[in-house]
């Protein structure tokens, strides 16, 4: 059974991947860790803009940053990719939401049924 935390994680992973600059950053990091300056080089973007993308990737757990001095090199962590790797896992939160709704609707239906029984 999925939890809200799992859902949140999946959302963040997908959100992070839904951007070509961020996918390019991940591809670059697959070759080895790099500093923000190095990552910014191939893009026509300001450092703060690149930093924002890296923060999104960090929140999604796809990038980890070293603690070393001011360079704080970025490195890839591909683990979250495995969690979202099936179409089926994408359907899970949809079904969970549906069944929550079924539960609420059932309560309504049964309340109405009881009211009708009372009327008879």
């Amino acid at each position, binding site marked *: 059974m999925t939890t809200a935390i799992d859902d949140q994680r999946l959302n963040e992973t997908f959100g992070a991947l839904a951007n070509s600059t961020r996918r390019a950053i*991940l591809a670059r990091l697959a070759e080895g860790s790099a500093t923000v300056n190095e990552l910014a080089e191939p893009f026509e973007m300001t450092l703060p803009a690149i930093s924002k993308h890296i923060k999104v990737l960090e929140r999604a757990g796809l990038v980890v940053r070293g603690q070393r001095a001011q360079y704080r090199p970025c490195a890839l962590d591909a683990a979250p*990719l495995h969690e979202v*790797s099936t179409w089926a896992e994408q359907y899970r939160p949809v*079904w969970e939401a549906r069944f929550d709704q079924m539960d609420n609707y059932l309560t309504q239906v049964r309340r109405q049924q009881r009211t009708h029984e009372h009327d008879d």
Partner: protein
Amino acid sequence: MTDNDGSRDAVVIERNFDAPVDLIWKMWTDPEHFKAWYGPDGATIPVAKMDVRVGGTRLVCMEMQFPNGPMQMWFTGEYREVVENERLVYTESMSDEHGNVASPAEMGMPEGHPTTTEVRVELQDVGGRTQMVMTHAGIPTDSPGAAGWTMAFDKFALHLQAQGNRSS
């Protein structure tokens, strides 16, 4: 990494409802009840046609509201097993409003999403309450690339790993 056998891709959800089995059965087979719960997150179900018998077809429209207007998604399928109050199995594919099956790629889904999936609902009476097990699985035989999202993401993950290994 998991293997790419699409048949292993399935969502299995077990739920217990404080309602008798015949009412849960109606939730799935009576269009009016079905419309009331099937559209999550603000989606509505304007159309639900259900010929609930083995070989009978179904056609469901899901409508979502967007700032630039409503978007409709149609799904069709066929009932494969119908055992009242116990077991319901039907297939599901994306389609147009006439029930002509559309490929997932045409509908904007990632390549490798199975064309046809199967939904299995098993109900059991537990002292007046209902235990429900829903299984939604891909049908690999209907789609050569049925590994679904696995294809896209596994490829991406492998690609990243390969690049990483090469340079380290």
